[in-house]
């Protein structure tokens, strides 16, 4: 292939990819915007409260552009977005970007820790259950998985706090850190664990970790339930393949067959499962954040929606949408490294 056609091809692929991306975002925003405008909540109320005189209500409605037709409001919003302006949140009076910059790292810490636990424990357990299919291990895993999937996380959270925080005193309580650290810890990135480690504030780091461990384990448990079930079924599929029989015939050790051969192949679809479960956690888990008083993205968006604070909702939607798109891309890339067949020659 001559270099020019290759370049042209690459440009075309990138172009169509960007086009799809743009359309995805536009659709995402349009749907969210319309929902935000048709829900029976008056956004002016969030700004002026219930007590403002009618004249003030009318003035603010005009200032917010709510008297314009909805398509025009949407157009104005899109133009602003194009300039990189997400607007100001009605509720917090901060620029939405600033709010998200603060809420998202809190969620990210929690989601990352949760996914590490979920995948780190869930995958081996799933493999184990597949190998011992039908045995007590498998049955126990089934019950554990079902429990994690069906018990409300809200209740689990409270019980966890009651046991590990209130009774046993093993972990920190609700909130990201003890009050004493509110004054001493200055954050650069919002990822407090990272910041405290970088600054060498190890007691703050330990404190942050003690607060993180319970909610992260809880989220990890829920995603573990899902990931281990999926791993089990992917593994069962692989273990029944002919190459496994061939490997056994060759006399390879069982461990090598399971971990090197079968799991390696099961990993390909598993990456998508883990990525999507991570993305789901990055959206913010409203209930977990409520129980643990965790100032994350889920609480922020929910609170905004309940107040028809559309700038904040849309800003949050863009972030969540970007996470999904980004993680999808990432899992595509991982596919290619894990599965040689998908690589272009």
């Amino acid at each position, binding site marked *: 292939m001559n270099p020019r056609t290759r370049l042209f091809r690459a440009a075309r692929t990138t172009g169509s990819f960007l086009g799809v991306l743009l359309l995805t975002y536009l659709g995402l925003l349009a749907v969210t915007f319309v929902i935000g405008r048709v829900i*029976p*909540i*008056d956004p002016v*109320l*969030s700004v*002026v*409260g*219930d*007590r*403002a*005189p*009618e*004249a*003030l209500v009318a003035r603010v409605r005009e200032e917010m552009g709510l008297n314009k037709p909805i398509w025009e409001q949407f157009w104005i919003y899109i133009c602003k977005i194009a300039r990189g302006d997400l607007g100001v949140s*009605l*509720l*917090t*009076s*901060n620029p939405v970007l600033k709010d998200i910059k*603060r809420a998202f790292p809190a969620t990210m810490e929690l989601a990352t820790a949760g996914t590490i636990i979920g995948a780190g*424990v869930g995958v*081996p357990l799933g*493999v*184990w259950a597949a*190998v*011992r299919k039908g045995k007590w291990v498998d049955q126990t895993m089934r019950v554990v998985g079902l429990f994690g999937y069906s018990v409300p996380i809200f209740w689990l959270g*409270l019980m966890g*706090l*009651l046991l590990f*925080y*209130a009774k046993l*005193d*093993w*972990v*920190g*309580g*609700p*909130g990201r850190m*003890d*009050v004493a650290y*509110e*004054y001493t810890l200055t954050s650069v990135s919002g990822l407090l664990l990272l910041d405290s480690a970088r600054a060498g504030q190890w007691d703050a780091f*330990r*404190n942050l*970790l*003690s607060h993180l*461990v319970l909610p992260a*384990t809880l989220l990890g448990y829920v995603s573990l339930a899902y990931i281990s079930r999926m791993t089990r079924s992917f593994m069962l599929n692989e273990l029944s393949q002919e190459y496994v029989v061939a490997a056994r015939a060759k006399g390879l*050790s069982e*461990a090598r067959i399971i*971990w*090197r051969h079968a799991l390696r192949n099961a990993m390909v679809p598993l990456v998508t499962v883990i990525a999507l479960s991570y993305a789901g956690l990055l959206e913010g888990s409203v209930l977990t954040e*409520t*129980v643990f*008083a965790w*100032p994350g993205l889920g*609480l*922020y968006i929910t*609170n905004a929606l*309940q107040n028809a604070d559309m700038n904040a909702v849309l800003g949050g939607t863009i972030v969540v949408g970007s996470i999904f798109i980004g993680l999808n891309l990432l899992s595509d890339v991982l596919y290619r490294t894990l599965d040689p067949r998908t690589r272009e020659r």
Partner: protein
Amino acid sequence: MTNSSPLAVGRLLGGTAFALVLGLTPMAASTPKDTLVIADKLDSSITMDPAEVFEGTAAEVMGDIYDRLVRFSEKDPAKPVNDLAQAWSVSPDGKTYSFELKPGIKFASGNPVTAEDAAWSLQRAIILDKSPAFILSQFGFTKDNVAQMIKQTGPLSLTMTTDKNYAPSFVINCLTANVACVLDKKVVLAHEDKGDLGYAWLKTNYAGSGPLKLREWRTNEVIMLERNDNYYGRKSILGRVIFRHVNESATQRLLLEKGDIDVALGLAPQDLDAVAKEKELKTTATPLGSVFYIGLNQKNPALAKPEVREAMKWLVDYSAIAGTIMNHIGVVQQNFLPNGLLGSSNVNPYKLDVAKAKALLAKAGYPNGFKVTMDVRSSQPYQGIAEAFQQTAKRAGVDIEILPGDGKQVLTKYRARKHDILVYNWDVDYWDPHTNADTFARNPDNADTAKSKPLAWRNAWDIPGLTKLADAAVLERDTKKRAEMYKNIQTEFRKNSPFVMLFQTIGVAALRGNVEGFKLGPSTGSTYLFNVSKR
């Protein structure tokens, strides 16, 4: 790992998790001694500017971080006393109020507090014209005339001229509100942006002279206050006060039991029950300026019948609800003025009486009752109250369908008066009877296009007679007579209004045993934290 069996992997993982948990050191189970940590819901705080703040914890802390000309007494939180003012007087015609400031007072910044700051702060509230501005503009101030009406007359003296000769108690009560806080003009104007009078800056910053000062506010997360060492009076005992956002009652209780917070402000009745049984915890309660009621929209033909309105009042099991859903957090109050306000009444004639209600319904032409909807916020105690009312009303044949909704959703519908029945509450805007008379018993224009839309309007209750009485009461300069007038208005209101008044809210705080001097104030901004100490 390739050579280990899956079983070994499981053991390893289990062991690691266990070690990780055990390795964490137990937390110190108490807060620093000079710091008071309070758990509260902070999500209704949208600004720290006194000219705009109205709701939530932000409004509450204004009493600690800002001074005003007059404020409520620490001993009797319903009595206004001089704050920055040394003395005040009213002219013989009842329209001009003169204030003399105490000398030598400084803002937290170190700038002296002058009459210029005081007059400018009031003018600023009128010019910015945010939600609470009406508390001042009801005296006839507008953007155009406020410079003439509120004037500095000397370094420490100013005058304020009202458009009518209002009851002095009314005017002074309104000046205790947050909107009348005195700001450090120099500091605020140093941060002015395009002639906004420092509005953008003050939303998240501070320029006051109160016993505590604002150190940091992170929306929905934390509000941090610390001692103002420039304060002119007795300095705050505590060095720091931290409000943390904790939404869940059960979570607040856990934190309190554990000693990670000192005060919990959002406990539900069942958690308060539990707290009451614990030795190292205590509670403190104050009746607040807030009432729960059921509104009956007069646009609904059935509800518009006077007999039906009265029948509804006999269909609520007040004492049963007070003993359960409202346990600890409310007392029966069948008048629109909460106890503690001038002219409030304790006459509560209604109780559950199905036979009486049935007779009234028959008289109105509904011997078998009727069907109707009721909008309710999907949170407690609203939901519990609604369900209890639904049950008792059914016994007289009134079939109520409950329509649950989020707070703002219900409110939007209510403001458009599209409901039939609705359960809601009302907080006083300032500590004077006019605030509630103005909304429950005044409706100058019942048209859909009305300029002012009080609660009487929202329930389409057309009351020219009561409106006149309420207008007269606010001009009555004899305080005793004025109180009597509100009592009379409420007698009429109890009988005929489309409001089934239910309860007065009781504010309850649960505290650690070592917290001393914590007392909830009845009105916004009168919970004085600078009096609190820790043993």
